């Protein structure tokens, strides 16, 4: 379980997070939504340790977050896939595996994971520049699950994809999360993704979580209705 308690973060005079409280259970899929610039990505970067919060606490299984141990057990799909462009597809997927096993073994696991995201062995030796946006996302997803993580983060997983590919990625993410039993935290502003991926949805507005509830009930939530209507929630 990850618990975020009273998290604050500002950049210069701009207060981005103003006391965020969140809790995510193992096996649960949480979607954090909000308008552009509300601090969704900053929240994610604080959890990942890519940005240091000004104040607040993040705990993992009830203990203060030990970054090194935590990092070893999670996977991350970046908005633009963030594949290493000097490495082939299989080397990207097997990046972490190659640090502790032979290339042959790591490549076999990478091919398995590529197959899991619907890519055949033919793409394994391509370079990232040769992939379409949808394929790059799938490779990014294969890299995120390569080490069988217990927590997976998704940053805007469908941004930049056409509706058909976006739907395919959403379906894939949901099936992987269900199949692996991993905790999933998704940052998105795509409500299709929320419905497809999430068990719970949290709305971040003005640096605070102003709604946190099950996806099944989100059509009845006033704060979400305001957000979906394009207005600013009170």
């Amino acid at each position: 379980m990850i618990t975020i308690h009273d998290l604050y973060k500002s950049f210069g005079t701009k207060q981005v997070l103003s006391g965020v409280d969140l809790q995510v259970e193992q096996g649960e899929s949480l979607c954090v939504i909000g308008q552009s610039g509300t601090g969704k990505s900053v929240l994610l970067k604080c959890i990942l340790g890519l940005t240091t919060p000004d104040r607040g606490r993040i705990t993992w299984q009830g203990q203060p977050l030990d970054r090194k141990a935590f990092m070893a057990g999670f996977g991350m799909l970046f908005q633009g896939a963030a594949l290493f462009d000097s490495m082939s597809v299989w080397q990207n997927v097997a990046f972490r595996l190659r640090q502790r096993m032979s290339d042959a073994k790591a490549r076999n696991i990478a091919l398995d994971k590529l197959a899991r995201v619907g890519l055949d062995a033919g793409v394994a030796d391509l370079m990232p520049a040769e992939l379409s946006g949808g394929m790059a996302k799938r490779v990014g997803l294969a890299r995120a699950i390569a080490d069988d993580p217990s927590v997976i983060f998704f940053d805007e997983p469908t941004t930049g994809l056409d509706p058909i590919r976006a739907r395919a990625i959403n379906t894939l993410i949901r099936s992987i999360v269900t199949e692996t039993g991993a905790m999933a935290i998704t940052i998105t502003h795509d409500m299709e993704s929320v419905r497809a991926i999430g068990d719970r949805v949290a709305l971040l507005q003005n640096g605070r979580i102003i709604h946190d509830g099950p996806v099944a009930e989100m059509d009845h939530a006033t704060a979400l209705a305001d957000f979906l209507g394009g207005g600013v929630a009170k």
Partner: protein
Amino acid sequence: MTPIRSVGRVALRLVRGIGAVAIFAAKGLGGLRPFPARALMIQLIQIGWLSLPVVGLTALFTGAALALQIHSGGERFQAGDVVPAIVAIGMVRELGPVLGGLMVAARVASSIAAEIGTMRVTEQIDALVTLSTDPVRWLVTPRLWAAILSLPVLVAVGDIIGIMGGWMVGTGSLGFNSVTYIANSWAYLEFWDVASGLIKGAVFGLIVATSGCWFGMHSSRGAAGVGRATTGAVVAAAVGILAANFALTGLFFK
């Protein structure tokens, strides 16, 4: 009070900046465990081997031009014969390391900053962190050590080619005897002349790679951010080389 405060603020910012860059370079130099043999080899080729043509051509033309200048200037006080010795000393002490360093700065600092800057803006560096990999150890360490090891070799090769440039002009158009020219080139050279130039080369290598890596790692968003990082890296490396050259020359030959 306000102008004094402003000067103080600028001075503090400058000192803080230099301190941050120094810590960054120290972290980069200290990341040799586990030893990044493959990455180091790739960078030695990128930074050292591929810089040979530009450094060699620069040295060749500089040595040739230096011979013409010294001969023409020396003739005014009947000292035209000193061309071989002055070309040799000038190349190994000063022009070899400085021009070699500047050419490598133009070629390598920009390319390092562009490569790492692009990785920064496309979140590849964040991806490294999430894959339990230290970006400094992965990206900076091999580049710093490759530049430190490559530059002295490039300077040595540049020195030889520069002296050969002077020899070509000296024997081809200034009427020097080939054997005498080469003998005079070596006769006045001392060990410390050569060693100081090689040490300068290693320091300039550190400056070039640190500039490229620092500006790349701190690149701001978008293509414009990478462009600014590239320009900043080259300017900082060039100014750093000239300033360090002055300081080292004072230290070695005062």
